[in-house]
């Protein structure tokens, strides 16, 4: 979508809602190198949410939406759960249809957009919880990867069914006592990152959302690889502070504790050779872009002084 589409006729500008004026004047549509540092300086794709106070998912949402490389041409697909309470606030087209079918929806969507807009960027990003990704939707998650569908799958892993009140999920740790696991979960946390690698994903990362820089990097990498090569998977720890007995202020510390080198969310990535090549190429281009921008700024400052 070109930014022209949202331009307001000058005569009408004053009567448009301020939200819309902001979207036109201060949105980051079409901005090269957009990222989490834009938060607070531009119109965000999400400003309000209906999650619990202090929920790490809300941080994750903000970082992810700020990091989408082309939000003006991105469609997101969600599923039922806490994320589905947030999507109605999100300023990119997004689809909620059923519980667990997100990767099937995304497969059809991506193919339709490829048929309708050949040669144009139209990114599709799935964002769903661990119940949707690993339990009820596992076959569709994996089959989309087997078929090499060109979209990114993001799993918000809070290690349980949060929205229905804290029941056991496949990504829950072994031994954790929860609803529907009254004597503790009896089997290991499903190793979806490893399964993703074996299923054909070209870029897989397992991490927490404690560091916005890191979230921005992996989101951009995952979307670029999916756009050019094939499926990518991000498993992001977004603990449900409510269901693990933490307070609103303790989400960040919980993530920091869980990403220590010996812990289950220690940073882990897999990148295929094809993806490595692409990411090296993109990094070189980004370096060039930044150098050119710096040079331009310096020249401008010099001209100003003169």
């Amino acid at each position, binding site marked *: 979508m070109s930014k022209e589409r949202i331009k307001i006729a000058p005569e009408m500008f004053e009567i448009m809602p301020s939200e819309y004026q902001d979207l036109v004047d201060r949105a980051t549509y079409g901005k090269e190198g957009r990222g989490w540092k834009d938060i607070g300086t531009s119109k965000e794709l999400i400003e309000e949410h*209906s999650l619990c106070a202090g929920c790490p998912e809300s941080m994750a949402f903000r970082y992810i939406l700020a990091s989408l490389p082309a939000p003006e041409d991105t469609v997101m697909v969600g599923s039922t759960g806490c994320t589905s309470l947030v999507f109605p606030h999100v300023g990119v087209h997004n689809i909620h249809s059923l519980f667990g079918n997100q990767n099937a929806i995304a497969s059809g969507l991506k193919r*339709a957009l490829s048929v309708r807009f050949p040669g144009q960027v139209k990114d599709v990003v799935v964002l769903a919880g661990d119940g949707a990704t690993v339990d009820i939707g596992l076959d569709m998650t994996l089959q989309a990867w087997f078929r090499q569908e060109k979209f990114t799958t993001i799993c918000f892993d809070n290690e349980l069914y949060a929205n229905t009140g804290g029941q056991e999920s496949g990504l829950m740790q072994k031994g954790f006592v929860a609803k529907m696991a009254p004597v503790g979960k009896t089997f290991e946390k499903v190793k979806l990152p490893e399964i993703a690698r074996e299923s054909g994903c070209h870029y897989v990362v397992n991490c927490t959302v404690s560091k916005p820089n890191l979230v921005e990097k992996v989101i951009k990498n995952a979307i670029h690889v999916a756009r050019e090569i094939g499926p990518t998977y991000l498993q992001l720890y977004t603990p449900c502070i409510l269901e693990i007995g933490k307070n609103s202020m303790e989400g960040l510390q919980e993530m920091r504790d869980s990403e220590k080198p010996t812990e289950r969310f220690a940073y882990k990535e897999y990148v295929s050779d094809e993806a490595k090549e692409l990411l090296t190429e993109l990094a070189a281009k980004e370096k060039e872009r930044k150098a050119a921008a710096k040079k331009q700024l310096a020249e401008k400052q010099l001209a100003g002084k003169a």
Partner: protein
Amino acid sequence: MATQSLVGTKNRSGQVVTDPWKMMHEAERSPCFFTGSEVIKEAIRRANCDVMIAYPITPQSEAAALIGELFAEGFIGDYFRGESEFAVMSQCAGAAFGGARVFTTTAGPGTMRAMENFPMWAGARLPIQMIVTCRGINSPLSIQPDTLEISYLLNTGMLVWHAETAQDFYDWILKGYMVSEEPDVHLPLALCCDGFFVTHTKDVVNLTPADMCLPPYDPYRSPVPCMDMECPPVRMMRDPFVMKSNYISYATHASWQQEVWAAVERSRKHAIRWLDGLIEVDRPDAEILIVSSGTAVSQGREAQALLEEDGIEVGIVKVKTLRPWPEEEIRQATKNAKHIIVPEFNVTGWLAKEIRATIPDADRVYAGPHVCGGMTMPPEVIAADIKKHLGIKAESLAGRGS
């Protein structure tokens, strides 16, 4: 928006985009002798489809595979095999959300497996066309003809039509897109037929020219936004209705459900125009009427001929659309009938129940004969049941315990 202006241009496979009314009603037709599955392929060849998603299940596998051949020939934008009917129907939804004209086929247990998707399709206003080649859904496993699955589709909010012949099928696939894509309708269509009887038998079908096709689907005529980021996104609400237990939340859901069903009703005028009425009546003044849908209509016609030899006059009402339900048409057509016979290829007699709920003096309805599990319905069985119902002595038929 753009469809009319595209008339006369060529599509991706070089076919000429044709005014659909002219294509269906005025263009020269040529006869072919094809199976129902081949007829589905020929209709889709001319439907300007963007995406078809397939999954094998008898008796629709052949049609689904033949459409793959169309993709290989360049007539379809994309085509692939999904992993299950539940996934396929979600993939169809994804493609339709993205603004594609979508086609798929299923049958029996596949329809049941995919069921969660259908009210979602209707609620999301996705004008997907799904062919249902009905077969048994019971256990023990059956792959034989049986129309029970149609009854499960009737309350999904989809349009549900029931084709009798391969010719119906050919015409209704193309006309179906024209009805379901109308902005005031914009709903999915389940186009049903009786598996094997229609899909696996050959019949003479008159085809429209292969170099003509329907205008492409225009997703910007949809009553809901197309999910392609080509129009500005809106933040829908501050608090999603799913979270709220209050009047506004209930009223929102209620009014949307009412709107979906209002759209089914609004499809009535388009279906009447394209299908030349929601029902077809032969000898409306007869005191005995056979009212049925699908291939039971064909068998009813044979029974009509048999009974005529015995001096018993029988009329026929063919029900073409089950949703929208032709309530007024059926009331009118049956107003003089003393006996209304409803033969069906299923064990529960869902069509008879619908008719009983529609007409005054419902005790005029005789629900039967019912055959199921793949049994055929010889016209002699219908004729014998009618005679029995009228108190006329009929020869006993072997194997029916009479």
